[in-house]
Structure formats: structure tokens, C-alpha cells
């Protein structure tokens, strides 16, 4: 796929440029009057959280396309986006924890968002493990695609079940993490938007790099099996 190489170069350059502009804005942005400098972790945390969910959406769409059209490209893209999504999910959880320790006084709380993000990470890992533990690549691809779709249907139910779990009985003491009517102030917004854009480009860049890797590896595997079984 020649086009992937072009996309990789383009998104690579664009990501670098946008990250540079975004970081320049971050240094210009004022500190939060309560949170001080720690608010800056938000510029990593929020874009990666968006990318984690976007990656899952991408995996789901690619999986549907794979089952429907049987296109191997869709399967390669799904596999690539799975690892990229897992990475963004891990970054979201880690950066949120680092922010949570000084702000909430704890690394972790069983809040709805945190819990469903953790389930998302396990789900990404499950997709990766499932594909690797089936010997027949076609069966592996099909099972993984179906699991991705099941996960896409289950994720909203998981999210709402933990929301209800944590709000039916207890007062929402951790609601600072949710939309408790808190609005971000004006000057903090532009760097966040620019960095979100940069992260989307970075995600695309990572998916293309990974997809080209996977394509090359599958090509190698095919050559290897042709060499081992020349008569087939």
C-alpha cells in the first residue's frame, strides 16, 4: 500500500508542527488559580482520553468493514489501531493518576470514568491476546473483529452501570472528575484544542506506521510458509 507511506510522511510532519505550536501555547497559558502548574497535565490527559475512545471507534468500524467486505486492509487497520488505542488508554490512566494524587489526594478512585477506562484497557489487551492465541490467522482476525463489536456494544452499558453504581447510593463526591457544571476558562482552551488536533494527527501517524509494520510482517509470514511448504 503505497498510499500508507505518503500518509505516514504527511501526518508525521503535521504532527510535529502542531505539537510545537500547541506546546508553545501551553507555556503561554496561565496557571489555574487553584491547581497551579498541575493543570498543565490536562493538555496531555484530555487529548489522550479522546484518542483512546476514537481508536476504539476506529477499531469497531474497521472490524465491521472486515466482516462485511472481507478486506484485509480493514483487518490490518483494526489490528494497528488496537495497539495504538491501548497505548493512549494507558497514557490517559497514568496521567490521570499523576494529576489525581495532588488534586484528589489519591492515585485512584472507583469513579465511573476511571472504571470504564480501565475496562477499556483490559478490552484492548483482550483483543491483542485473542488474535495472537489463534493459530489460523483468518480465524483470529474474524474472532477479534467480533469481539471488538461486542465490546463496542458493551462499553456504553459498562459506563452507565458504573455511573449508576456510584450515584444511586453515594453522593457524587468525586464529581469533580465529571461534568459537574465546571467550565474551563477561556485562555486555557486554545492550547487544548490545538493539542487535541495534534493528538489526532499523531494517532493517524501511529496507526499508519503500525499498519505498514503489520503488512510487512504478514508478507514475511507468507513468504516463510511458501518456503517451508513449496508444494502447496
Amino acid at each position, binding site marked *: 500500500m503505497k498510499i500508507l507511506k505518503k500518509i505516514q510522511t504527511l501526518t508525521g510532519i503535521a504532527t510535529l508542527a502542531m505539537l510545537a505550536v500547541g506546546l508553545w501555547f501551553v507555556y503561554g497559558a496561565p496557571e489555574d488559580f487553584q491547581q497551579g502548574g498541575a493543570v498543565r497535565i490536562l493538555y496531555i490527559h484530555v487529548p489522550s482520553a479522546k484518542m483512546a475512545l476514537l481508536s476504539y471507534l476506529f477499531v469497531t468500524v474497521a472490524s465491521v468493514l472486515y466482516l462485511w467486505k472481507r478486506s484485509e486492509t480493514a483487518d490490518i487497520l483494526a489490528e494497528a489501531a488496537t495497539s495504538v488505542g491501548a497505548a493512549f488508554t494507558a497514557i490517559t490512566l497514568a496521567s490521570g493518576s499523576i494529576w489525581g494524587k495532588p488534586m484528589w489526594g489519591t492515585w485512584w478512585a472507583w469513579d465511573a470514568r476511571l472504571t470504564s477506562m480501565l475496562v477499556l484497557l483490559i478490552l484492548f489487551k483482550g483483543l491483542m491476546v485473542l488474535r495472537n492465541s*489463534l493459530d489460523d490467522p483468518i480465524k483470529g482476525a474474524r474472532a477479534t473483529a*467480533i469481539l471488538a463489536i461486542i465490546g463496542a456494544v458493551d462499553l456504553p452499558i459498562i459506563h452507565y452501570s458504573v455511573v449508576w453504581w456510584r450515584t444511586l447510593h453515594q453522593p457524587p463526591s468525586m464529581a469533580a472528575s465529571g461534568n459537574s457544571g465546571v467550565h474551563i476558562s477561556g485562555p486555557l482552551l486554545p492550547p487544548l484544542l490545538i493539542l487535541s488536533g495534534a493528538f489526532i494527527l499523531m494517532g493517524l501517524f501511529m496507526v499508519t506506521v503500525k499498519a505498514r509494520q503489520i503488512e510487512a510482517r504478514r508478507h514475511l509470514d507468507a513468504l516463510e510458509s511458501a518456503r517451508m511448504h513449496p508444494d502447496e
Partner: protein
Amino acid sequence: MLKAVYRIAWKDVAGDLRRRATLSSMLFFAISVLVVFQAAFEPDRKEALRLLPGLLWATTLFTTLVGLGRVFQAEEEDGAFEGLLLASVPRGVIFFGKWLGNLLLTLLVEFLILPLTLVLFNVDAWGHVPAILGILTLGTLGLTGLGTLLAAMTRGARSRETLLALLLLPLTAPMLIAGVQAIAGVLLQDGEVIPWLKLLIIFDLVYLAMAPWAFGWLVEE
């Protein structure tokens, strides 16, 4: 159609009742989970009442994994799965047959385990037994539905038992939360029960609607 579902389920259940392979390992696994809980937490009577909903569901979930590891075992050993697929019924019917067989065995174990738990943990909740059994049954419908599908998905996979646990446990989070809260609501007589039952029903409907369709995709050659 219904007859085919019943035949496939009966083949599994009757075969298992005669050999007592899956049923007895599930039962004794469940008992050992109870022993582990008792040794790990040493609850007194009051704590045991509070822990009971979680205890029941955790035992159910772990025990289900044992049963699910064997759903397709008989067919795999004899290479009979292809034969089953050749049956002139839709793939969804085959799925429902395998699901029903697994469901019946799992429910049987749950029904045996509940009185045992009440006795072993010295909890006086005998008046709530029908309600608790109802909630366990409601959750188990979707749990075994999702589980049977995942068992079909991991058929022939390396280290499938571990894989099955890794895939099943996160996806059953809604069932676990709703099931535990519903039983707690019944036992303590103060919590909400109906909203959690609704969540369990949503969980059941989603999985029992999706699974036969997904099963058809999975076994296609």
C-alpha cells in the same frame, strides 16, 4: 427449531449427568471458592450478611468459567463439531442449544450452592432465598450467553482458559454490579432493586440477541 435447541441441550446435560464430569467439577470448584473466601476474610455473621451478595456473584462468575471451558470439549475431543455444524438447522439454533445446556448446568450448581453458602457462612437469609435465586437466574441468562459465545470464540486457542477469563470478566462488569446491588437491596430491605433488575434485563437482551448472530460469523468456514 425449538426441538433442535432442546435436543442439543439435552445431549449435553444428559451426557454430563451420566458422567458427572462438568457438574461435579463446577460444584467442588464453587465449594473451594467459598472456603477460600472464608479463610481470606473470616467474616462474622454481620459482615457475612454484607458480603453475601458479592460472595454469591463472585462464586458464580468463577464457577461459570469452569463450565465454559468445557462447553465445546466433548465435540472437540471427538472432532464432532463439524458434524454438529452440518445439522440442517440455522447456526443460531445450534448456539441456543449449546447455551441452554450450559445454562441448565450452571443454574443447577447455583441452586445447590446458595443453601450451602447460607449454612457455611451462618447467614440467616432463608426468607429471601426465592428472590435471590430469581436474581441469580436473571443474571445467569446473559452471563452464560456471553460465555458460550466467548467459548466458541476461543475454541482451539492456546491457553484458552486464561483467555476466556481475560475476555469474560471485564465484559460482565454490568452484570456483576447490577446483580450484587439487586441482591444487596433485597437482603438489606433498603436499597433500590427494580433499576438494577432492569439493567440485568438489558444485559441479558443485548447478549442473547447478539450472540447467535455472532456465532454464525464465528463458525463460518
